[in-house]
């Protein structure tokens, strides 16, 4: 190639003119590099190399004395602020179970993947956990969008996902266990509570995504049937931190209460603005369904004291199981780290899976599903029971008030666990919803 003399010694000229020949050569170099990429990707495929790559449902690998489970949470990107705590909580449960002998005599080996707050990435990582790591079950996801993205992956591969966050309902995937609240275990009780306090009008504020929009649809149907007025409805793009106008609108509406379905960062800005506008928990209480202890900590009780939240668990929920959970969590992650509802639901989900596996005496998803009905666990939130048909769990609804110390104090509960009803079939006013 370099037989032309100028390619050898003339510095700048050859630099440029020799640019041509290598360019054609680069196509070949490119192909070679492409082959290298393929080879590298193949190296990454080591766990799969043994099995026939074309069989449909990747079987979980339970041959050794360990069993792998997947932890699928956003560890980077905007959702990391919430999801990292869930990952921590899942790890705690796994450690505890391993310390007490594991599941069916096998130690649990968690495989953590980063969903990176990006839905297609969630789908990719879910497939990786199922097909490459051969996990027996996967725990995680937070946003509805990430759950919708991975749902077909789990269904296609007949593998189990345990989803630990309260959500908008209207879903029953045969391969997902929902251990957070569905709407009739959180939103509907919160509305009942407002009604019982005599609030006649509400203002809806939410982030612009599926959960708030669906929740607000349900709220509007409820309000219509129960003589409540919805005075306004506002959505802010996810991650939005400019709430002065919404605060003005809320203030001008003179509603009795605000129903808040904002997510993450936006809550901080919203409550700072809310207070600046001169609105207080006394003059216009806000019921939030996404603010748990972790969020209280980052917003500051300065802005939140007196406001209401609706969940199934608070750090202050009484009971020996919770005392143990809170103590263990703080011992592992630090005394200043609070526990919250999604963390508790995640923690509980690992124990529920363990109980199902032990009842089924198998890690096989179909057998685990079959064994799920009626499984109970003495969870930090109180005893929960799995409803095998809907794969949701019976949970007690709790309304809490945020204290000046940043903890949430329960002011009302549903008395007993509420049966999950993701499609709100038991509510007449909800008939037109889906």
């Amino acid at each position, binding site marked *: 190639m370099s037989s032309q003399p100028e390619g050898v010694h003339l510095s700048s000229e050859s630099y440029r003119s020799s640019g041509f020949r290598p360019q054609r050569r680069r196509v070949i170099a490119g192909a070679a590099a492409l082959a290298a990429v393929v080879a590298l990707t193949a190296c990454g495929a080591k766990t799969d190399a043994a099995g026939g790559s074309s069989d449909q449902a990747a079987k979980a690998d339970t041959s050794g004395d360990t069993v792998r489970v997947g932890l699928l949470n956003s560890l980077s990107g905007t959702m990391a602020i919430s999801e*990292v705590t869930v990952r921590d909580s899942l790890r705690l449960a796994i450690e505890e179970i391993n310390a007490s002998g594991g599941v069916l005599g096998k130690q649990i080996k968690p495989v953590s993947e980063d969903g990176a707050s990006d839905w297609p990435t969630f789908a990719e990582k879910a497939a990786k956990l199922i097909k490459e790591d051969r996990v027996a079950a996967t725990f995680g996801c937070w946003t509805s969008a990430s759950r919708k993205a991975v749902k077909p992956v789990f269904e296609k591969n007949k593998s189990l996902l345990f989803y630990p966050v309260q959500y908008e309902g209207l879903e029953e995937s045969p391969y997902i266990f929902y251990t957070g609240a569905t709407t009739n275990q959180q939103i509907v009780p919160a509305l009942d509570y407002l009604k019982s306090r005599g609030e006649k009008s509400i203002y809806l504020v939410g982030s612009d995504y599926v959960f708030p929009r669906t929740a607000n649809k349900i709220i509007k149907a409820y309000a219509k049937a129960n003589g409540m007025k919805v005075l306004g409805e506002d959505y802010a793009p996810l991650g939005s931190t*400019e709430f*002065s*106008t919404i605060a*003005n609108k809320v203030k001008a509406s003179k509603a009795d209460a605000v129903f808040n379905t904002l997510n993450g960062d936006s809550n901080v*800005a919203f409550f*700072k603005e809310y207070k600046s506008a001169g609105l207080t928990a006394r003059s216009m209480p806000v019921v939030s369904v996404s603010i748990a202890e972790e969020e209280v900590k980052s917003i500051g009780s300065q802005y939140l004291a007196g406001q209401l939240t609706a969940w199934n668990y608070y750090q202050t929920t009484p009971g020996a199981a919770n005392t143990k959970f809170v103590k263990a969590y703080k011992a592992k992650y630090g005394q200043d780290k609070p526990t919250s509802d999604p963390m508790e639901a995640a923690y509980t989900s690992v124990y529920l899976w363990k109980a199902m596996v032990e009842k089924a005496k198998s890690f096989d998803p179909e057998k685990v599903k079959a064994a799920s009905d009626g499984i109970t666990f003495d969870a930090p939130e109180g005893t929960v029971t799995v409803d095998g048909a809907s794969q949701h769990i019976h949970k007690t609804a709790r309304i809490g008030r945020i204290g000046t110390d940043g903890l949430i104090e329960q002011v009302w509960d549903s008395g007993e666990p509420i049966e999950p009803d993701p499609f709100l079939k038991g509510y007449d006013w909800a008939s037109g919803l889906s």
Partner: protein
Amino acid sequence: MTVILGQTFTGISIGAVLLLIALGLSLTFGQMNVINMAHGEFIMAGAYTTYVLQKSISGAGLSLLVALPVAFLVAGALGALLEWVLIRRLYLRPLDTLLVTWGVSLMLQQLARDLFGAPNVQTRAPDWLTGNITVLGGSDPLTFANSRLFILGLAVTAVVALSLTLRLTSLGRRIRGVVQNRDLAEVSGISTSRVDRTAFFLGSGLAGVAGVALTLVGPIGPTMGTNIIIDAFLVIVVGGIGQLKGTVIVAFALGVMQSVLEYSTTVSVAKVLVLVAIVAFLQWRPQGLYTLRTRSLV
């Protein structure tokens, strides 16, 4: 009437926040033509500085006031470091700078996550900043939030300080000299590389100050910078590169526009409309509101 006044004030206060975060960019982007995507992370550094200081200084008010100069220095030092390590190699490649500094911003976000934890952190605002003052009494009172007034004051102070620095000090003259004719400045004995670094220090330092202000109205977390950075760039682009007065006018104009549209429609619609309006505006005036009309810019 109350609504109109209230929304106008809201718009001005949104504009003040925009102005604060864009002000640093008016130096680094506007004067030096460097698209620094890590600018948002310098804002974050300023916010975390407030958080750290508040842990060691009791008294929310004092720590906030101390945080202003400290955040300026911290973010400024980060900026000067970035300029020294990376950006000075990229002065003739503004678009590569954008991508490189984006890589820097990814790393800084992860660093914040590892240092301070993934969840947001909180700072306490002093009591004199959490309330509001009533401007018009009556059944439908018009109130201005103290925190917003504080930010407005801070923004105005920063603008005045910056423009005085550029206009009156020898540093300012050197910066303007370098911007207008680098070669000439160089042969006139100005160390252009030092001027570059100083300008970058100032611009990034202003981002740190903006970060302190943002702790009063928004969350403090690893990704807080990314959400606002594009808005800040748009302010500079629409205002006209290298034009402080353009930046000021556009920040307030966009703020008022956003707040008025938001009130009459929804946040998302308002956001989209503002962006579309910006695109349309740039069709009309592709060089922004104010242009430095010299022959070399024809």
